[in-house]
C-alpha cells in the first residue's frame, strides 16, 4: 500500500512540473525548444546583421502554392530560427475559410485570386488583407507519349470540344486532322482550383463534361494519362516538368499560334494558359515584426527557389508591385 501511495505522489508531482513548464511556454508566446537545434545551421548561413526574431506564423491554403511557401520557410529557418512557420494545406478555398472566417492564419496561399464571397467574409469579420503575387503556374495539357504525333496543338475551340459540356468521343471529331481514336480524359475534379481555372478562365464555359476520370490526386491523373493512347489530361507545370518522360505536352493556341508550355513562354506571356500564384497576408498581422519580415523575405527569396519547386518566376514588374503593396501595408499598420 505504501509503495502505491508513493507512486501516486510522484506522479502528481510530475504532473505539476509538466503543468508549470506548459504555463511558462504559453506566457512567453514563443517556441524556445527549436532554437538550440537550429543555431548550428544559422551560424553558417545567417546574415550577421539580422536581428533575431521570435514568433509563430500560421499559413494555410492552396496545395499548389504550399510547396513554394514551404521552400521559403526552409530558407527562412536558416536566417530566423526563432520564427516557426506552421504550414497546412487545405486548398485555396479551405485556406480562405480559415483566413477570413476563423481568422487564425496570418497568411493564406492561393492559386487563384480571392473570390468576392471570400472577400466579403473577410470584410464582415473586419479582416483587411494584402494580395502578394509570388509567381506563375502554366497549366499544362498532356497526352500519352504513344498518342499519334498529329495531336500536337489544341486551340481553345478544340479544347471546348474535348473538355466542354458537350464533349465529343473521338479525336477526329475534335479536328479532322486528328486520328480516329477515343479520347480518354483524366483531369482534376470540380473541387480543385486547377479545374476552376480550366473551365472559367481558359475555356470560359459553364462547367465541363461529366464523363471523365476525375481525381484530386495528380498521381492518379498522371498514371491514367501516361498509360492510355489517346489520353488527355491537365495539371500544373510542376507536375509536368518533373515527369517529362511520362507525357507529351500539347501546344496551346489561344488565337495567336501554337505555343508549347515552358518557363520562357510562360514568362514572356506567349503561352496563354498561365495563372498567377498568390499569398495573402492580414494587414493587422504585419504589425508583428516576424510576420512583416517573413512577407518581405518571401518576395526577396521567391525567385531563387521557385524553379526548384517547378513554377515560373513572376515578372519584375509584378514582383515590385507586390513589394510596394506589402511596404504600404506595413507602413499603414
Amino acid at each position, binding site marked *: 500500500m505504501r509503495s502505491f501511495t508513493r507512486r501516486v505522489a510522484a506522479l502528481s508531482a510530475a504532473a505539476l512540473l509538466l503543468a508549470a513548464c*506548459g504555463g511558462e*511556454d504559453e506566457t512567453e508566446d514563443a517556441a524556445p525548444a*527549436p532554437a538550440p537545434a537550429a543555431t548550428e545551421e544559422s551560424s553558417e548561413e545567417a546574415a550577421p546583421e539580422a536581428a533575431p526574431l521570435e514568433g509563430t506564423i500560421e499559413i494555410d491554403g492552396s496545395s499548389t502554392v504550399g510547396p513554394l511557401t514551404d521552400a521559403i520557410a*526552409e530558407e527562412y529557418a536558416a536566417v530566423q*530560427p526563432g520564427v516557426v512557420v506552421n504550414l497546412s494545406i487545405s486548398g485555396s478555398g479551405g485556406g480562405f475559410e480559415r483566413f477570413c472566417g476563423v481568422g487564425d492564419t496570418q497568411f493564406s496561399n492561393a492559386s487563384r485570386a480571392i473570390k468576392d464571397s471570400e472577400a466579403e467574409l473577410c470584410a464582415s469579420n473586419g479582416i483587411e488583407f494584402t494580395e502578394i503575387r509570388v509567381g506563375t503556374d502554366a497549366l499544362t495539357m498532356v497526352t500519352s507519349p504513344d498518342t499519334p504525333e498529329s495531336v500536337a496543338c489544341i486551340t481553345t475551340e478544340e479544347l471546348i470540344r474535348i473538355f466542354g459540356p458537350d464533349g465529343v468521343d473521338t479525336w477526329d471529331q475534335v479536328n479532322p486532322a486528328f486520328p480516329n481514336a477515343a479520347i480518354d480524359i483524366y483531369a482534376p475534379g470540380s473541387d480543385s482550383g486547377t479545374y476552376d481555372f480550366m473551365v472559367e478562365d481558359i475555356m470560359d464555359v459553364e462547367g465541363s463534361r461529366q464523363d471523365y476520370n476525375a481525381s484530386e490526386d495528380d498521381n492518379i491523373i498522371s498514371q491514367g494519362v501516361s498509360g492510355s493512347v489517346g489520353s488527355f489530361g491537365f495539371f500544373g507545370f510542376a507536375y509536368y516538368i*518533373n515527369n517529362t518522360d511520362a507525357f507529351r505536352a500539347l501546344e496551346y493556341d489561344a488565337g495567336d499560334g501554337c505555343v508549347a508550355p515552358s518557363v520562357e513562354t510562360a514568362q514572356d506571356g506567349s503561352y496563354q494558359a498561365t495563372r498567377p500564384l498568390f499569398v495573402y497576408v492580414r494587414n493587422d498581422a504585419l504589425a508583428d515584426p516576424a510576420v512583416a519580415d517573413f512577407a518581405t523575405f518571401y518576395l526577396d527569396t521567391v525567385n531563387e527557389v521557385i524553379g526548384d519547386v517547378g513554377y515560373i518566376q513572376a515578372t519584375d514588374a509584378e514582383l515590385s508591385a507586390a513589394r510596394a503593396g506589402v511596404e504600404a501595408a506595413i507602413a499603414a499598420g
Partner: protein
Amino acid sequence: MSVLSTPAGIARAAVLDLSAPRARLRRERLFQAVLLGATLIALVVMLSLLFDVLGDGAGRIRTEFFTNYTSRRAEDTGIRTGLTGSLSLMVLVAGMTFPIGVGAGIYLEVFAPDNRFTRFMQVNIANLAGVPSVVYGLLAAAMFVYILNFGRTLISGALALTLLILPVIIVASREAIRAVPPSIFNGALALGATPWQATRKQVLPVAMPGVLTGTILALSRAVGETAPILVAGAVFSRRADNAPWDILEAFGALPVQVYDFIKRPQAEFQIEAAAAGIIVMLAVLLTMNSGAIILRNRYARKR
C-alpha cells in the same frame, strides 16, 4: 466437436475413419491446403509490400532523414517534424487512454450493477469501437479546436486519437478482466479484502498482460491514423520539434508527412522519401508491438 470430446465419440470417429479412409483423408488434405492458402495470401501480400517499400526507401534511411525538417530538395528532406509529432501524440494518448480505458473496464466488469443503464453503455461502447476514424476527427475538430478553443494544437490531435481508441481499450480491458477466474476475486473477498483491494492486488495483475496488449495494439492503430489528426489540425510542415509537454503547439505527424511526400510532383519524393517515411512508421509500430510482447511476458513471469 462435442462428439470427439468423449472417449466413445473418439472411438466412433475412428470407426467412421476406417469405413471410408481415402475420401476423408482427401477432404482433410484439401481443407488444410485451403487454410494454408489463406495464411499464404496474407503473408505474400505483406511481404511483397514490405520488400517493395524497403527496396524504394532503404537507401534514404540515414541520420539526416531523422534530423532534417522537410526540404524542397528531395535528397535533403527529413521526417523530424512528423517523428517528434507522432511520438509526442503517442505519449499523450497513452497517458490519457490507459487510466480512463482501464478504469472504465474495471467499473463495467467488476462494480457496475447489471441494470438497463449499464447494458445501454456496454452496447454503445462496443458500437463506438466501429465508428470510422474521420468521424472522431470531425467531432474533435468541433469540440476541442473550436468549442473548447484549444486551437489546432497537439492536445486537440491527442484528444481526437484518444476518443478514437478509447472504446477499443475499454473492450480489451473488459475481456482481459473477465478472463481472470472469479475464484481469485472471491478468494480475496473471503480473506477480508474490499472489492477494490481484491481488484487491484489480485485481479488486475493477472489481467495486466491482456490489458497492455490491447492498449498497445490500439495505440499502434492510432499512430497510423491520418484522417482524425488532419481534421484536428496537423500541419504539413513546420521547422520545430514537438514535445509531449508543449500541448498548445501546432503539431506534425508521420502519416501526414508521408502524405505530403506522396503529393509532391518529384519522383524522389513520391517514391523514395515516401517509402522511407513508411519504413520509419513501420519501425515505430514494430517497436510498440514488441514493447507489448515484452511487457506481457514480464507480467506473465512476475505472476
